């Protein structure tokens, strides 16, 4: 801590930071552009000039850039000094010289950092009479608009995109006042974090193209604190609604999880909410009852009729199948409706086995599950099998930052403060902390990896066992080849040398043996470190869906599996079945699901999108989407977080838990999510922690709600006037502490439910600094979520891992960020980046088969035969074959032994596959520092 004086007022500040950051931490308004809380300082824009005085006698002072000025104890500074104010007003005037006078037609308008800073610096009228520099724009793909005229050359975009997120296709071109930020040639921005440019860019150069297609100003959007349901990380989001449709998602700061950045699946996947595939009304398939196969006999009904039908159909013993993509409340409601013995987690058997292993590991003392910020602080990471960039992309971004810890350490040794971004990068050059990747194919993290091992799951397990043995000689592992042992020794050495080593894996491979082998390495590492340090070893597993862990926790203690449920259905050993928000064709072999459907039990499905499975439902109930319903989600660390509905769904949509809780549907209000949680938490001691998620408000906030709308929300008396000139009553929300209006406790008084960051004078998302305890610190108020698991398990010794056979040809399954997840795949922009199913093989196998790049092969497994376009990659496990299912292929049948043969090429098919592979953006040029 240091004591400094700014404009005659004494402040206690953190001496490790720069002056700008500390000014903002103290709540002072100082304009800036190039500095970003997560990316440090480069001193490019000259906007944050302040006066620095030598001592109390110095009356003249010197102008310094606050972002480049380290804090000195006893320092005297002035923001208000007239020379500093004058300097800043001239800087902004020159930055605005070529600004194109197009705020009214700019998507950034109203939440523009440049507008805010211009106001703050007091620049009003343009005095420069000469010509403005103009630029041509590029088409940057389905996510982003490009409008280069608005650029002020702060370099934040390339610093984020290149330095922070590791992208290589956004660069600064040309020089002096011609400088241009774009691609070498027009095309889609490849990086999976490109969407963050919308928030990183202080002006409107990069704006959200999907938002622009149904644009609303920030002040007109109704927002609520929400949780991304795209994967198991649990990033905090602020979705915005206008006129009954979801318009966009922006980042909502969470200190431990997403920080300032979201991945593109999370940011652009929201459009599935507005998809034509939405289930908008109850569908009752009369045809199935009458034995008539005419699909047109579907009868639509009102919510009340549907609820009655639902009650009538689900008497007696009912099988309930839960869902990892439904909220905790919906799953609880189903569990309570059908009873624990009839509740089946809707995870595939392989996934369930893996998640059960993970749950044990999350309870095991001596291990620690790092949050995303924790991952960023690890100085050696062993990433096992999971293709994080395509499954839990935010974790991949964190690992990319973790590799920078070597640079930070070098800088600290050289007495360079870590926020001196350019200096630290210059010093470190390509020096990185070790990141070791074990994977069946090249990944998008390979460019920062210190070592990559390409191997099938069986080969990876062998290597992991060898590492465990290197770490702890007592570990019982089979003798391996000297090459593998040498490799294992290098990796073990890196893990031992690190002060905070971390192991990261996932359940995509659906292999419990892999999880056990990874855990064994963590245990061996802990034994090795004993004596040196008692700190637990970091070990975490990425979860594929937003509530995978929550669902597994609910079903813990029961031996029910999905295949058991399906065989019960097939044999008709129940009176009816309820399937909650789940496409079972993605969870079990098609033959098994079809057999279950042939059982002819009354099947009720609740879902918000039509899919292959719910087309078979006798009654399909329209469920509210995550943005339209309250709910809690349990992320990969078993952290439960609450999401609040952004807007009330249109009749007859209901949240799944509302459908599932037997109540008179006419009598409002329906059951609230908090009521379900509270009841469940008091009945189940294991879930007692959930109580902390419930609304606890004091003082003014206890009697008033928090508004979902900003104070300037417009058009209230005209929005629906075309339907009826008398205004409709504001939708009430008795279930949550938020209201569907602009009245309530202002954000500045109570930010415990921070729907969206806004502060007077700070209209952009960078207003978040006004809600943090200090810059990059915790939020002042609000619930960070609660951990549902404590380290109370047994201190397990090593688990024996099953040896997998390497003889048969079984594929590994590829994941893709775009299209790989069921719900976001329905968003139009995501679809534009997604590909269909394909197979991935290496050169050797391609030659054997006689197939060319983008040609086609036929894959036979059991009774399934499919023809797939082929991607021949250099970086793929020797002898491996990868298959991307795209949600269309039956993964479970393909996981058996495969037979592959070439198919004759047709020119038009070749063209089509080439077109499909264009967006995959697979880069095999990285060989890793140590070779592969």
């Amino acid at each position: 801590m240091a004591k400094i004086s700014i404009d005659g007022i004494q402040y206690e500040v953190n001496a490790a930071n720069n002056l700008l950051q500390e000014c903002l931490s103290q709540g002072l308004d100082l304009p800036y552009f190039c500095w970003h809380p997560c990316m440090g300082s480069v001193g490019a824009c000259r906007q944050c000039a302040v006066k620095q005085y030598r001592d109390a006698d110095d009356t003249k002072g010197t102008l310094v850039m606050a972002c480049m000025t380290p804090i000195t104890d006893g320092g005297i500074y002035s923001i208000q000094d007239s020379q500093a104010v004058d300097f800043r007003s001239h800087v902004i005037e020159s930055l605005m010289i070529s600004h194109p006078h197009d705020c009214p037609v700019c998507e950034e308008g109203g939440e523009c950092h440049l507008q805010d800073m211009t106001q703050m610096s007091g620049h009003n009228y343009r005095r420069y009479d000469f010509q403005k520099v103009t630029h041509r724009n590029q088409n940057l793909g389905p996510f982003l608009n490009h409008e280069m005229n608005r650029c002020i050359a702060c370099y934040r975009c390339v610093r984020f995109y290149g330095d922070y997120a590791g992208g290589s296709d956004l660069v600064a071109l040309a020089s002096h006042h011609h400088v241009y930020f774009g691609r070498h040639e027009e095309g889609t921005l490849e990086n999976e974090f490109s969407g963050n440019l919308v928030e990183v860019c202080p002006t409107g150069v990069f704006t959200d193209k999907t938002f622009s297609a149904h644009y609303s100003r920030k002040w007109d959007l109704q927002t609520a604190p929400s949780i991304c349901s795209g994967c198991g990380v649990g990033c905090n989001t602020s979705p915005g609604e206008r006129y009954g449709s979801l318009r966009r998602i922006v980042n909502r700061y969470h200190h431990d999880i997403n920080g300032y950045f979201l991945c593109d699946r999370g940011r652009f996947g929201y459009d599935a909410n507005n998809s034509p595939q939405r289930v908008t009304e109850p569908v009752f398939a009369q045809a199935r009852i009458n034995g008539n196969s005419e699909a047109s006999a579907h009868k639509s009904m009102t919510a009340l009729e549907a609820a009655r039908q639902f009650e009538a159909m689900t008497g007696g013993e009912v099988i309930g199948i839960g869902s990892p993509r439904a909220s905790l409340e919906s799953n609880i409601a189903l569990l309570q409706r059908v009873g624990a013995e009839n509740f089946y987690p809707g995870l595939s058997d392989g996934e369930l086995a893996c998640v059960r292993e993970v749950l044990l590991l999350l309870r095991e003392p001596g291990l620690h599950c790092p949050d995303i910020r924790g991952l960023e602080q690890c100085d050696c990471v062993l990433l096992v099998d999971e293709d994080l960039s395509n499954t839990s992309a935010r974790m991949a971004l964190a690992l990319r930052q973790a590799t920078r810890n070597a640079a930070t350490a070098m800088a600290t040794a050289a007495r360079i403060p870590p926020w001196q971004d350019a200096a630290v990068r210059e010093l470190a050059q390509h020096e990185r902390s070790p990141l070791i990747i074990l994977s069946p194919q090249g990944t998008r993290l390979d460019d920062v990896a210190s070592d990559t091992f390409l191997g099938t799951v069986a080969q990876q397990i062998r290597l992991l066992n060898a590492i465990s043995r290197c770490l702890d000689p007592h570990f019982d592992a089979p003798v391996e080849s000297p090459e593998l042992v040498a490799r294992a020794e290098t990796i073990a050495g890196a893990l031992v040398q690190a002060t905070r080593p971390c192991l990261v894996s996932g359940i995509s491979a659906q292999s419990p043996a892999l999880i056990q082998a990874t855990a064994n390495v963590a245990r061996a590492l802990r034994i090795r470190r004993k004596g040196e340090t008692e700190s637990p070893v970091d070990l975490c597993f990425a979860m594929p869906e937003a509530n995978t862990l929550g669902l597994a926790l609910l079903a813990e203690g029961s031996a029910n599996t999905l295949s058991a449920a399906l065989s019960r259905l097939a044999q008709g050993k129940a009176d009816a079945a309820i399937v909650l928000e789940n496409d079972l064709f993605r969870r079990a072999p098609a033959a098994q699901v079809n057999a279950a459907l042939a059982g002819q039990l009354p099947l009720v499905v609740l879902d918000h999108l039509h899919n292959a499975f719910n087309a078979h439902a006798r009654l399909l109930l329209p469920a509210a989407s995550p943005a339209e319903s309250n709910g809690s989600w349990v992320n990969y660390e078993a952290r439960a977080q609450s999401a609040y509905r952004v807007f009330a769904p249109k009749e007859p949509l209901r949240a799944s838990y509302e459908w599932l809780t037997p109540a008179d549907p006419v009598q409002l209000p329906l059951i609230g999510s908090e009521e379900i949680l509270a009841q469940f938490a008091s009945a189940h001691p294991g879930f007692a922690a959930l109580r902390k998620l419930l609304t606890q408000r004091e003082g003014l906030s206890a009697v008033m709600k928090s508004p979902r709308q900003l104070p300037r929300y417009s058009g209230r008396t005209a929005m629906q006037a075309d339907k009826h000139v008398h205004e409709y009553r504001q939708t009430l929300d008795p279930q949550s502490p938020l209201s569907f209006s602009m009245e309530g406790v202002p954000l500045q008084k109570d930010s415990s439910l921070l729907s969206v960051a806004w502060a007077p004078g700070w209209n952009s998302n960078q207003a978040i600094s006004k809600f943090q305890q200090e810059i990059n610190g915790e939020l002042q108020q609000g619930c960070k979520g609660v951990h549902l698991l404590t380290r109370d398990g047994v201190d397990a010794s090593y688990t024996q891992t099953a040896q997998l056979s390497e003889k048969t040809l079984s594929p590994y399954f590829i994941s893709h960020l775009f299209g790989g997840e069921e719900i976001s795949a329905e968003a139009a922009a995501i679809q534009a980046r997604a590909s269909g199913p394909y197979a991935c093989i290496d050169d050797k196998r391609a030659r054997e088969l006689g197939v060319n790049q983008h040609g086609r092969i036929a894959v036979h497994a059991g009774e399934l035969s499919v023809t797939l376009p082929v991607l021949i990659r250099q970086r793929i496990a020797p002898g491996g074959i990868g298959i991307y299912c795209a949600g269309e292929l039956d993964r479970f049948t393909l996981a058996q032994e495969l037979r592959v043969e070439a198919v004759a090429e047709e020119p038009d098919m070749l063209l089509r596959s080439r077109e499909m592979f264009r967006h995959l953006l697979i880069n095999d040029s990285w060989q890793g520092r140590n070779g592969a």
Partner: protein
Amino acid sequence: MLRLIKDTLISQVVTLWKVFLHAFDKTDTVEYPDVKPQMFSRWRGRIILSRDPDGEERCVACNLCAVACPVDCIALQKAEDEEGRWYPEFFRINFSRCIMCGFCEEACPTHAIQLTPDFEMAEYVRQDMVWEKEDLLISGTGKYHDYNFYRIAGKKIGGKDKGEARNEAVPVNVRSLLP
């Protein structure tokens, strides 16, 4: 007693006399609607949406009128044509809420929304006071004849390329090495 007479009775007699004299004054009443009053051009009456000198819609759906409106009676939705020009997909004013304050006109950066001297806006049915873009859009420029927002703003639209707006240089060739 005398004082009471002086204070009340005389005053009333004087008032009666003055009222009587007004019978011979020139009348101020206008026989509306047979005689239409002459309004000032800056009178804040019925709101219209104008067109630019090229005959295109001036409104760019920036939403500033809606946010400035103290009674929130303006609602609109932005749309964009293939060549980048913004326009309102719908533009609705609920005149039964409008207080004719003129803030929308002040806020409008393109001179699209203007208040006119027309005050005859009564309706028998309140629903008829909700006006859509088709009702609001006139074919002329209204009070401001010359202003064309897109000729000044640097956004490319159909018929106006980059570098063709006022005070703009031709687009930079990023591959050029010249200073």
